[in-house]
């Protein structure tokens, strides 16, 4: 068993993680940075982001406008000091990405272009055609290769945080190629492991988005914040859940019901297709319930129509959408409308972290989708998340580098013991397990369908109670799983089982947090409590692990500055 040691260890190789690694090195060139990821970094789910990254770069825009749009979009659950810092840093970060080679689409004068986006009052979403995440990820990853201080551990699956005297000092990771458990120690650790979409059946998220980092932090005693706030994107392809970018509407696409009506005029008359995601997703579900959806082989859907934009605009600005339509639906979006329906897309909630990415645990930081720094509140605006990965990835990288410069070195003894215990735990629980009968795939599928049904676009007390009960039953069955694969080499049945273990745990935190919030705010829509209740719930929820069945909940005031809560209408 190896014993690597770093100053800063980043878990996750997506946009936030790589940005953090570079920031750590640029803060202090003597800092030794490790980056561990369960996939090669360019496979990270940032790659699937399409529409763009928001920043107030244009002269007609202002920090204040971007901040207000973000706070209003969050249904006032965003921390306004965090939003303020974000809007000021975002333009600098997008320029930095430009210097690092991101092929931003340009205006005729050669400057970075922007497009309209949902909930944004002006054009501030910068884009690289409709593959913005792909281009940003490859640019930042390829740039990271020039820093000799960064050492990667690709395809290493983190199973546990190393904690010594309430301080995070590294991770235990399974090297997938060899099956070996390693203690990778560090003076500080940054979690940047992305989202948890695979807890749902119908999601835009890739197979790797299993909430690992959230679960790792939660088990180590760190709170998870606003876990009831799950974003449903209005436009996913039926069956696969593949994301059709909001940029389709940003560029002028229409959402139509089965009467050919632009139905959003009845929901968000002033914004129409450029309304925020939570409200449009609810509008679409309402259209389905009232019989104005289309019926297809894979359930109900509506039409997203770009035919009036013309081939030239589509090929210039939305070429990937045309490709996805051709490949996965068998249609040419120049000639036919795209079938879409709301789909789980993003997690506003996450590891409790402050404006610099610091969690309450010494030495532990978090950034990107797995973190909740307080930027997105109850509903994230489209295109704020890529910018968030950069701004708060960089902040966490700087903070962790500074912390590590002053921190005590990690001692080998307790770490060694934890490593042995953890390797043994996994062997006993999975590899040496005898007599199990439950298939991982079956439990996972049931969990996903229960989450769709109980913690979807609309929620009720009964639905959430039932969900909690069902998740408890699935947890019990998980104790009787059957692992057929006992190989040391690239054992993806083992990693799938550990991912399912993570997902069962965080699904429960979503359900419990959602049940406790008896109001409707942003993405959290309770049919039994349809109004927002600022008096009682203008607060972040925090969920802590006590025992698996009964997590403990706390609430914390939202940081409000200039923007006082008001009715959220569009």
């Amino acid at each position, binding site marked *: 068993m190896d014993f690597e040691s770093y100053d800063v260890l980043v878990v996750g190789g997506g946009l936030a993680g790589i940005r953090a690694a570079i920031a750590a090195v640029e803060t202090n060139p003597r800092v030794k940075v490790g980056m561990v990821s369960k*996939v*090669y970094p*360019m*496979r990270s*789910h940032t*790659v*699937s982001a399409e529409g763009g990254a928001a920043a107030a770069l244009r002269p007609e825009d202002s920090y204040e406008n971007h901040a207000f749009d973000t706070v209003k979009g969050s249904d006032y659950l965003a921390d306004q000091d965090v939003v303020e810092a974000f809007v000021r840093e975002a333009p*600098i970060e997008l*320029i*930095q990405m*430009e*210097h*690092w*080679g991101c*092929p931003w*689409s*340009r205006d*005729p004068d*050669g*400057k*970075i272009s922007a497009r309209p986006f949902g909930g944004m009052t002006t054009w501030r979403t910068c884009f690289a055609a409709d*593959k913005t995440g*792909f*281009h940003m990820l*490859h640019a930042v990853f*390829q*740039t990271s*290769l*020039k820093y000799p201080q960064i050492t990667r551990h*690709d395809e290493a699956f983190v199973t546990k945080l190393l904690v010594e005297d309430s301080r995070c000092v590294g991770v235990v990771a399974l090297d997938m*190629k060899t099956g070996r458990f390693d203690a990778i120690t560090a003076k500080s650790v940054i979690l940047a492991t992305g989202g948890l979409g695979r807890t749902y059946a119908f999601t835009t998220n*890739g*197979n*790797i988005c299993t909430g690992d980092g959230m679960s790792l932090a939660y088990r180590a005693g760190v709170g998870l914040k606003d876990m009831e706030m799950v974003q449903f994107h209005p436009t996913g392809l039926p069956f*696969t859940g*593949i*994301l059709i970018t909001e940029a389709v509407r940003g560029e002028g696409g229409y959402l139509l019901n089965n009467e050919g009506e632009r139905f959003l005029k009845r929901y968000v008359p002033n914004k129409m297709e450029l309304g925020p995601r939570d409200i449009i997703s609810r509008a679409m579900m309402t259209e389905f319930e009232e019989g104005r959806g289309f019926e297809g*082989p*894979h359930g109900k859907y509506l039409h997203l129509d770009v035919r009036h934009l013309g081939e030239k605009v589509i090929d210039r600005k939305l070429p*990937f959408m045309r*490709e996805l339509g051709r*490949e*996965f639906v068998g249609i040419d979006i120049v000639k036919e409308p795209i079938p879409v329906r709301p789909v789980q897309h993003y997690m506003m909630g996450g590891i409790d972290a402050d404006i610099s990415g610091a969690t309450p645990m010494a030495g532990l930081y978090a950034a990107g989708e797995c973190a909740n720094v307080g930027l997105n509140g109850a509903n994230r605006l489209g295109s704020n998340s890529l910018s968030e990965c950069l701004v708060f990835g960089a902040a966490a990288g700087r903070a962790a580098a500074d912390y590590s410069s002053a921190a005590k070195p990690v001692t080998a003894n307790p770490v060694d013991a934890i490593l042995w215990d953890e390797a043994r735990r996994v062997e006993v629980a999975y590899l040496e397990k005898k007599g199990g009968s439950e*298939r*991982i*795939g*079956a439990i*996972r*599928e049931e969990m996903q369908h229960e989450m769709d049904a109980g913690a979807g676009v609309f929620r009720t007390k009964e639905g959430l109670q039932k969900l909690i009960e069902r998740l408890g039953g699935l947890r019990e069955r998980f104790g009787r799983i059957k*692992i*057929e*694969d006992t*190989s*040391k*080499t*690239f*054992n*993806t*049945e083992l990693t*799938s089982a550990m991912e399912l273990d993570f997902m069962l745990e965080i699904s429960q935190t979503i359900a419990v947090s959602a049940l406790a919030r008896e109001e409707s705010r942003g993405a959290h829509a309770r049919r039994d409590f349809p109004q927002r209740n600022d008096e009682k719930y203008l607060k972040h929820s925090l969920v802590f692990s006590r025992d698996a069945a009964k997590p403990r909940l706390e609430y914390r005031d939202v940081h409000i500055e200039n923007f006082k809560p008001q009715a959220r209408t569009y």
Partner: protein
Amino acid sequence: MADKRITIQTTRYDPDKDEKPRLQSYEIPFYDDSMVVLDALNYIKSNVDGSLSYRWSCRMGICGSCGMMVNGTPKLSCSAFVRDYWPRPILVEPLNNFPVIRDLVIDMDDFMHKLKSIKPWIIRKQEIPLGAGEHRQTNEQIDDFRQFSECINCMLCYAACPVYGLNNEFLGPAAIALARRYNLDSRDQGLKQRLPVIADNEGVWECSFVGECSVVCPKGVDPAKAIQQSKLDTTMRFVLPYGNRD
């Protein structure tokens, strides 16, 4: 639809147990017309045999994880539709020309080193400060390198390349296309630093211009063109007067 079946034959190899790779056959339901080969593998893993190993993530042709040989052709398994093969069996094997770690999982460390060797980042004689804003670049200037920037590192081109198959020292299609991507970027001044690698014995001159790399690319990148253009770059270095060589 309900009773249609499809046979998937796939490579199995576990170095802990097997001396060499073998084929295993699974007959599973062809349950939906939209089903792709990756769905078939996922069905097997979830319902029939949990030990089958392969990589995948985005299932939308952009993460580059799920490249495999499907009936002998390098494909992204997320974009290879079962209906295009049914009712005949589908043969799924690991990508050609790579060492196999397990089942359908290939070892791509070699590419990761090659990627780094071509210095795939913007190189400037002098960096401009962030405060000066962005470099001006027109969409037409981006068009010069756009297609080469679309590479998803899926390794299909390496699996298709007969030269790489014979000599894995060859830098290969994707790495050369990415070098070209930076060399053609109006913001970049690093051609001189990249030339030693691409003009090396194992660089562009190894290519015998079979062009299979461009045929199999799922993203419309034309690495063969990048290689031919780069050959010109490496010769121009010796032809141009000294002052024009930057």
